């Protein structure tokens, strides 16, 4: 079954730049998809449309049966609760501990304290940071901070995990650690993962589905693809 369906989508920014031209895509539940392309290819715009940071100018973006384009600003939170998002710059709260940062996602949606505790510890265990719960972000390495961000993104058991260049700030070794974590999440939890990246090595090693964008056009959608420019 398709978790995401994108039909005839075009995205034109207010400054007149068109980031995506007539895009059609279907992504199956439980898949692991790379979105690749150079800068300005539209991969970040595609990710942003999936979590409704940007609205498509034309067409439909359907995530888990919800037409994201028609979603009102006030109701965006309903979509966000169904998905997890990871960024290149981690976006952690510096004055809160690892535990608090992950728990924050559940507190915001009014979850009960004991459920928060169980879920947070499980998520931190999944990313291998159970021994760092009381540390603050600045006491962690970049890779560890990104793992906290991943734990925060999956703590709510989302169907979909969106990653926008999650390894962009990390060295190859740490990047592979992150990829291992993401692959485990994909396998163990069955979470659909869509990851925008321009890291050739990762894409080639992982052998997952690859969507290639160039100047806003879909060039290729390959099962078990590699990075082709």
């Amino acid at each position, binding site marked *: 079954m398709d978790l995401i369906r994108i039909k005839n989508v075009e995205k034109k920014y207010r400054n007149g730049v068109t980031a995506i031209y007539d895009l059609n895509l279907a992504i199956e539940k439980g898949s692991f998809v790379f979105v690749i392309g150079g800068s300005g290819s539209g991969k970040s715009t595609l990710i942003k449309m999936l*979590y*409704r*940071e940007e609205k498509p100018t034309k067409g439909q973006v359907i995530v888990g049966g919800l037409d994201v384009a028609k979603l009102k*600003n*006030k109701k*965006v*939170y*309903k*979509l*966000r*609760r*169904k998905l997890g*998002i990871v960024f290149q710059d981690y*976006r952690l*709260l510096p*004055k809160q501990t690892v535990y608090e940062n992950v728990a*924050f*996602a559940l*507190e*915001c*949606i*009014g979850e*009960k304290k004991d459920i928060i505790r169980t879920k947070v510890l499980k998520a931190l265990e999944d990313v291998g940071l159970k021994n760092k719960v009381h540390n603050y972000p600045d006491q962690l390495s970049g890779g560890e901070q990104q793992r906290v961000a991943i734990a*925060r993104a999956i703590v*709510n058991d989302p169907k979909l995990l969106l990653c926008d260049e999650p390894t962009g700030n990390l060295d190859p070794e740490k990047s592979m650690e992150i990829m291992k974590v993401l692959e485990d999440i994909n396998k163990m939890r069955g979470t659909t993962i869509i990851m925008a990246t321009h890291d050739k090595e990762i894409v080639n090693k992982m052998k997952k589905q690859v969507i290639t964008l160039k100047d806003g056009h879909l060039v290729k959608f390959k099962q078990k693809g590699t990075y082709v420019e």
Partner: protein
Amino acid sequence: MKLFRMLGRSIRDAIKSVIRNFSLSLASISCITITLIIVAIAIIASYNVQNFTKEIERDMTIVVFLENGIEQEDIDDVEKELKSIKNVDKYTFQSKQEVKKQMQEESEVFNTVLENWDDDESPLKDTFQVKVKNVEQLSATAKKIEKVDHVSVVRYGSGMVDKMVTAFNSVEKITFGIVIALVVVTVFLIINTIKLTISARRREISIMRLVGASNFTIKTPFIIEGMILGIFGSIVPILITMYGYLAFYKHFEGHLYSQLIELIKPEPFIYQTSIIILLIGIIVGMIGSASAVRKYLKV
């Protein structure tokens, strides 16, 4: 249940955030404090002016002197005429005998002088003492009464008192305007100060939005924080109102310069003013943070 849990969390987060962002909180609190002090002074001044204008107005009487040797029938006619004048609120009749008695009681000198006059000789006249509804039309009403038959002379608050009332009325309006203007200015100042606080926490808000917090969930802690800032900001102005006004009242022994200008008694006035100050503080804090946070809620 969930709502209470969220509300409890919001209150906890708000208190935490006031403490964590202490220097910015202090900036907002001082801003609220200073403006509320001025608002408090303006309120106290405005109410006092209002009070003694009313006091003076209450004392404003038109004294209608009737012709000498007037008959009871004619007195009744004058009374009817008075009744028909719209601005007349109340009136009392005082016969010359009563006037004489009153004067005798008031002063030893009058007592001996008046003792020797009988009713026919007496230069005193029967009078009506008229209170009006609207003091600003006092002179117009007096002129109307003057034209009534059998009325000899009409006396009313001399020119100075008349002018004083008009002056006080405008002072009252001006102070009221100042209070309103100050409240508006405070709201703007607080919006800006809280905007600073919030812009320092843009990241937190953007993360809240990313993890699926509803606008209500994001706004509530900030609004509660605004309330807390408002409450802290009104502490000093309230203390100044309570102890300051009490000291002021005691120092002037309840009257400003002359017996004419009477100050409002401190109790319950200072409590009422304090509550108004507290409410202004809370509301202004809430409005300030609500409008400041809204900027960051647009997707």
